[in-house]
């Protein structure tokens, strides 16, 4: 609202002029206009202003109408609502209040902008204010001293003024209430008072032609016809049509022959003591909920004045007054309908909002429950992650830490809040990062990686750790290529476990085994060698019994040596302490070495060893494969009669079933030195870790070894059992053949550690074939 400068006295008085009218630019959106109207409830209209000049007016009624009829009102502008012509009055031109009122009525407007010489807005005259001012003037003028005889013109003017004033008063009263019942009752009361009539009523006509008196002001002792319903015959449709077109009927005497009333109707009105009546129509107001096109006028009802005491001539003034009041009633009905419509819409909208609110509340509650559950779950997860003795971290695809558990603080003295968001490279020094860079790259390429390293804990002590990276892969939509289900590595989880204790135990075990190995084998060597030397006979002849005893001791020493070897080896293999130092090795060479190692035994038993092979590079620990081959060859020799042949073969072999993927463990490559590198997150102390190199990717391509003999064979039901501990074809074999029952078990362990498989095919009495597979070296994959 724009304040206007004081323009001094208005010619018609300052009391009627609002010098601070509500204004806005014509392009202002209705939402803002409505907000302004709400903020200024005393304003009955808003003026559209352009360069301080009024370009239009929109009353509250206009705005309400738009709200009720236009669903797009929010986007409309003030200029679109202003449909009335702007009629202004000069601030300095002398004009009596009545003249202003007539101007308002003449143009059927309720507001007069007041402008200066340059047509700039200086104020606003509202009809209601004008009427109040007139009323005050009238009251002040109604003194007995001021009632001299007036000239006829003055009388006429006075009557006109009085009529206008009365109409204005009634209109004001009508406008003061939006309640229809109140408006109608006020009307009948005022009309009765003004016309000094015996009865004034408002008769509502229903769509079926019947009607009812809905408002009445009646003088005593005349009967009341309030709330009385009348049949259609009382007010035929033909008459309704006439009144709908604006017919007014003033009957001075219902009994007069020229009254034009039928006998039955005269009898009817006589029952209510009616001598004279004045009837004006009240037309159907525009229904805001109806189609705006169908605006044909229809009769809503009648405003009727009765004179019951005597016949009466109705004056033009009274006719005019009734008609104008009927118009006000029609307007009031329109406002009432609009109000009812708006109230209905408010109720509907309130119901919708309530329902939406309930749904929203429900959703909020559900979300709160979900949030609470999520928080609880997160708290539990944090509790677990912070209390597991494992470093847990999540690294995103940009190699930045996004999560670290509290163990980082306990072990490394680095609090998660100090690490989160930082890159791996910045948290650890560059040299260390360089060592693990390839593992990080592999993880971000979608590969699960595991390697061992050393970590300096706070306090400086180095701990052996096992580090595992698990890639976090999600399916996303590739919008560029318009493809769905594209796999994307979002980051990886890093788990670091302290394996110091395990390593210490491993070292202790290794030392124990080394010590035991040495402490068992050394005396065995002495015993074994001594007995062998004795057995040569060159240290003196023994009696037959002595020789026999010597052979027993010698044989059992041999057996003991083998048993010690096997037990220690099996124990180490079972405990996972045996690490296969795999390398690329020629399979044919392994066959040769194995055959050479067993040549003496073979010759001793009169067995020939035949090799059929081709150069095949395999990825194995040669010592252990030789061990396996010598074991199998030894068995073949032991269980073959003299003069037989043992065939050793190796050839490429393609597995019928694919190998399952597994985490690639990082082992030292013999081609690379055992580089002592460091992995350090916090301290600057250089520690060491195992060198890493990737093992060949899993492949179906392998080499197949076969040791075939023509010996006694193996019953089919024992073919699987012979690979179990202390299982032999015949337990007597252990005594006769000197077996320990662990050889094939060890062979199986060795082969399985290489990712291969071992099995036997045999027919009892017709020889056996022992097969095992090992992977080809990566050069061939």
């Amino acid at each position, binding site marked *: 609202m724009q304040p206007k400068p004081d323009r001094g006295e208005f010619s018609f008085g300052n009391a009627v002029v609002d010098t601070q009218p509500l204004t806005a630019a014509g392009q202002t959106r209705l939402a803002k206009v409505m907000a302004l109207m709400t903020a200024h409830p005393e304003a009955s209209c808003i003026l559209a202003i352009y360069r301080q000049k009024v370009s239009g007016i929109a009353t509250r009624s206009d705005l309400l109408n738009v709200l009720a009829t236009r669903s797009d009102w929010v986007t409309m502008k003030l200029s679109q609502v202003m449909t009335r012509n702007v009629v202004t009055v000069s601030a300095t031109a002398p004009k009596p209040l009545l003249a202003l009122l007539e101007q308002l009525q003449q143009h059927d407007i309720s507001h007069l902008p007041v402008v200066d010489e340059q047509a700039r807005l200086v104020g606003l005259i509202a009809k209601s204010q004008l009427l109040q001012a007139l009323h005050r003037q009238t009251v002040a003028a109604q003194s007995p001293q001021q009632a001299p005889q007036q000239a006829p013109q003055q009388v006429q003017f006075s009557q006109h003024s009085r009529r206008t004033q009365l109409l204005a008063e009634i209109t004001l009263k009508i406008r003061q209430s939006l309640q229809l019942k109140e408006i109608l009752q006020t009307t009948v009361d005022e009309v009765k008072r003004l016309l000094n009539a015996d009865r004034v009523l408002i008769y509502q006509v229903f769509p079926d032609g019947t009607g009812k008196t809905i408002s009445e002001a009646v003088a005593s002792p005349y009967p009341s016809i309030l709330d009385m319903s009348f049949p259609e015959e009382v007010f035929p449709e033909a008459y309704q049509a006439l009144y709908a077109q604006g017919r007014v009927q003033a009957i001075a005497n219902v009994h007069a022959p020229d009254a034009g009333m039928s006998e039955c109707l005269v009898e009817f009105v006589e029952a209510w003591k009616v001598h004279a009546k004045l009837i004006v129509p009240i037309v159907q107001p525009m229904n805001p909920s109806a189609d705006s096109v169908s605006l044909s006028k229809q009769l809503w009802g009648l405003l009727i004045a009765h004179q019951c005491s005597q016949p009466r001539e109705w004056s033009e003034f009274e006719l005019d007054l009734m008609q104008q009041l009927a118009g006000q009633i029609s307007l009031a009905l329109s406002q009432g309908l609009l109000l009812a419509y708006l109230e209905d819409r408010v109720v509907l909208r309130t119901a919708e909002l309530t329902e939406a609110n309930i749904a929203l509340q429900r959703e909020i509650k559900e979300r709160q429950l979900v949030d609470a559950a999520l928080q609880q779950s997160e708290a539990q997860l944090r509790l677990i992650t912070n209390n597991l003795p494992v470093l847990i971290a999540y690294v995103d695809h940009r190699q930045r830490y996004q999560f670290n558990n509290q163990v980082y603080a306990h072990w490394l003295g680095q609090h998660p809040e100090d690490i989160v968001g930082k890159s791996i490279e910045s948290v650890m020094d560059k040299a260390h990062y360089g060592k693990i860079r390839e593992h990080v790259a592999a993880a971000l390429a979608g590969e699960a990686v595991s390697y061992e390293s050393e970590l300096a804990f706070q306090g400086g002590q180095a701990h052996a750790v096992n580090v595992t990276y698990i890639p976090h892969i999600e399916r996303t939509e590739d919008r560029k290529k318009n493809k769905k289900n594209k796999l994307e590595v979002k980051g990886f989880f890093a788990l670091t476990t302290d394996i110091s204790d395990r390593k210490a135990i491993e070292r202790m075990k290794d030392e124990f085994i*080394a010590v035991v*190995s*040495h402490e068992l*084998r*050394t*005396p*065995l*060597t*002495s015993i*074994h*060698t*001594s007995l*062998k*030397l004795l057995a*040569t006979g*060159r*240290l003196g002849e023994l009696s037959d019994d002595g020789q026999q005893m010597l052979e027993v001791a010698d044989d059992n020493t041999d057996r003991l*040596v083998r048993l010690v070897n096997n037990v220690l080896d099996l124990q180490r293999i079972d405990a996972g302490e045996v690490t296969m*130092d795999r390398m690329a090795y020629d399979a044919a060479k392994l066959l040769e070495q194995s055959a050479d190692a067993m040549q*003496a035994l073979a010759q001793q038993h009169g067995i020939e060893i035949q090799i059929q092979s081709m150069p095949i590079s395999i990825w194995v*620990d*040669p*010592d252990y494969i030789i061990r396996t081959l010598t074991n199998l060859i030894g068995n073949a020799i032991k269980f073959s009669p003299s003069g037989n042949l043992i065939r050793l073969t190796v050839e490429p072999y393609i597995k019928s079933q694919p190998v399952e993927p597994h985490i690639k463990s990082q082992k030292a490559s*013999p081609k690379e030195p055992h580089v002592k590198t460091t992995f350090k997150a916090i301290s600057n102390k250089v520690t060491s870790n195992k060198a890493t190199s990737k093992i060949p990717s899993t492949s179906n391509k392998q080499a197949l070894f076969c040791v075939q003999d023509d010996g006694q064979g193996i019953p089919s039901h024992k073919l699987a059992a012979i690979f179990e501990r202390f299982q032999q074809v015949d337990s007597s074999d252990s005594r006769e053949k000197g077996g320990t029952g662990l050889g094939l078990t060890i062979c199986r362990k060795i082969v399985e550690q290489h990712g291969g498989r071992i099995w036997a095919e045999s027919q009892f009495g017709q020889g056996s074939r022992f097969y095992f597979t090992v992977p080809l070296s990566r050069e061939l994959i």
Partner: protein
Amino acid sequence: MSTKSVLIIDDEVSIQKVVSLSLQMEANWTVMTASSGQEGIRQAERHRPDVILLDVMMPEVDGIATFEALQNNPITQTIPVVLLTAKTRTAEKQLFEKLGVAGVITKPFPPLALASEIAKLVDWTM
């Protein structure tokens, strides 16, 4: 072939005895013994054997340290050394071979073939 002389350095007396007897019986070699690395070095300096059989696991100064001392001694550095050990792996063998030993014999060894095994390693003709 002239008789070879062998120095056995092993803290186990029983090993000394059986190895000595085996080599004498099989190859008629002259055998000297020492029970520690230090004693072995002194023996080697004094007698300059044709080959030294050296046990790996010995207290105080182990076989590897003894070998390195022998190699650093201009008097003994040309004498071939064969290691005797309770258990060796290929990786360990490669490590030993990198040291420059002539060979490695695993215990327990075939006693009647010990001489030929040593001869093969030091490239002697039996």
